[in-house]
């Protein structure tokens, strides 16, 4: 058995803040190993939202009265928090969306439609979540641009050797890539991709849904042009996410959705758009969710994103070691923790992942079974599906141990 990692954050202290972790399922305490799908919520975040609704709720940007001022301050304060979290140059670069998916759609339907035409090339990768594939398929279809996917090897490591050929095919306009695969945990060689893209005069959209939650992400240091993430994976509420974009790029774009908030003036004949960031936020925004996201960011920064990253790293190392003790279990992707984040996919002999997840549920161990919204990757790896366990700041080695016990039970029940 691998040694338990040395504590980097006080996980027991952290866990006390997450009320759902007291949940008992089938007689056992919850072991939630599906944070890559959505994170659990600290009571501080829940309390912030309830407090907001109970004291300051009013529509934003509109009321002259006290509640309206408080609510606008709270909403715009959340934008400042996101700007700080990502080290954005300006708060004008932060646009609130529903989730990562809407953020990517926004870029595809504004920047994409304005900059892509027949013969142009959009580059994505086989590692991507559907959210970073389908909008580009639709864009390519609408504009006549060509969509090229970078392949990975059997361990999920992205291959860059096709880049030269792609550059010769046409003008590369957009490179859309994940910061970390939500299925395998692998991280593509981002710096190389950014350098290559910028050499082609292409912009880079980074899908950071899997990294903003658990480590410091600095848009200026990364050198990307757009970045998307989801609040619900970041200890925040559902219904909110954000797009960050370089101000010069955003300023040149036509709006996305239209209606109230995003206008400066409306006449029956013509309408003038608002300035950044509001130009891209149509209608009443998810302002209470923004307040929740702000509280979540405060929580993450309180614990420390570097400590969270280190904790995840340690837990992942532990999990990789322990999973390798299970006979007939095959880990998909790199088995060294420093090449990947806290997400581990595996298969167990020919037992269907659904059966594994169902049996683990009887142990109150929550893992995901399926394609994890990455069908092309799963197909590329020649699998029907995988089981995926993913970790976060509240994950303990004890929960990993219970996963292992559950897997041994799967073997017994399924006779493998």
């Amino acid at each position, binding site marked *: 058995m691998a040694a338990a990692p040395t504590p980097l954050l006080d996980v027991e202290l952290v866990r006390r803040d997450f009320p759902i972790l007291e949940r008992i399922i089938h007689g056992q305490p919850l072991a939630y190993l599906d944070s890559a799908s959505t994170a659990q919520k600290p009571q501080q975040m829940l309390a912030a939202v309830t407090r907001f609704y109970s004291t300051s709720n009013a529509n934003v940007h509109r009321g002259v009265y006290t509640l309206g001022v408080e609510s606008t301050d709270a909403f715009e304060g959340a934008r400042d928090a996101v700007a700080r979290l990502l080290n954005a140059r300006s708060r004008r670069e932060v646009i609130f969306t529903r989730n990562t998916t809407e953020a990517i759609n926004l870029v595809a339907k504004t920047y994409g439609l304005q900059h892509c035409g027949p013969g142009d090339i959009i580059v994505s990768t086989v590692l991507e979540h559907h959210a970073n594939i389908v909008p580009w398929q639709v864009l390519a279809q609408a504009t006549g641009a060509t969509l090229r996917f970078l392949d990975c090897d059997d361990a999920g490591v992205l291959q860059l050797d096709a880049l030269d050929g792609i550059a010769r095919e046409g003008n590369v306009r957009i490179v859309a890539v994940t910061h970390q695969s939500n299925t395998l945990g692998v991280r593509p060689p981002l710096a190389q991709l950014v350098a290559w893209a910028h050499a082609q005069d292409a912009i880079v959209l980074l899908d950071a849904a899997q990294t903003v939650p658990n480590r410091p992400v600095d848009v200026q240091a990364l050198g990307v042009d757009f970045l998307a993430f989801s609040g619900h994976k970041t200890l925040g509420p559902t219904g909110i996410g954000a797009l960050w974009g370089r101000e010069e790029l955003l300023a040149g774009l036509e709006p996305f959705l239209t209606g109230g908030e995003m206008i400066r003036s409306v006449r029956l004949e013509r309408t003038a758009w608002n300035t950044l960031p509001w130009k891209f936020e149509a209608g009443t925004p998810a302002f209470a969710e923004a307040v929740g996201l702000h509280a979540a960011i405060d929580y993450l920064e309180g614990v420390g994103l570097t400590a969270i990253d280190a904790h995840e790293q340690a837990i992942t190392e532990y999990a990789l070691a322990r999973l390798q003790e299970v006979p007939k279990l095959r880990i998909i992707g790199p088995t060294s923790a420093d090449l990947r984040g806290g997400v581990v996919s595996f298969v167990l002999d020919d037992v269907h992942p659904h059966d594994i997840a169902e049996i683990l549920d009887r142990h109150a161990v929550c893992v995901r079974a399926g394609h994890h919204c990455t069908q092309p990757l799963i197909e590329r790896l020649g699998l029907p599906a995988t089981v995926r366990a993913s970790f976060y700041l509240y994950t303990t080695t004890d929960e990993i141990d219970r996963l292992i016990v559950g897997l041994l039970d799967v073997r017994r029940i*399924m006779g493998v």
Partner: protein
Amino acid sequence: MDELYRENLMDHYQHPRHHGELPDADAEAEGQNPLCGDHVVVQVRLTDGTIGEMRFTGQGCAVSQAATSMLTELVQGLTVEEAAALPSSAILDELAIPLSPMRVKCAVLGLGTLKLALHRSVGTPLPAEWGDTDEIVWG
């Protein structure tokens, strides 16, 4: 724990009945649950308006494969109309395990595919309830 995957279910999963291709089938259809990758191909030979034999191939979770195996025995000799009218509960009773809504889709995959096959070949109605099993792709 074991109430989940009972002996009968595991037996059907590990030793599926009427498994394999049916040459000269009178009716045939394919069903797939893209969410989890369960997949069955159902073939039926009709004898005087009854189910002469139903066979299946496919892959997927224990529930989907065992349920389809059980179905092959359950429908043997039923009239086409009886088979086409078989409620989901028939197969759920047969499985006799507690199933979440997500897994019910696995359980009824074979039955739905059979009904589609009969519908295509002899025009029996597709019960309205199948319209709601939206995540299953009938092919």
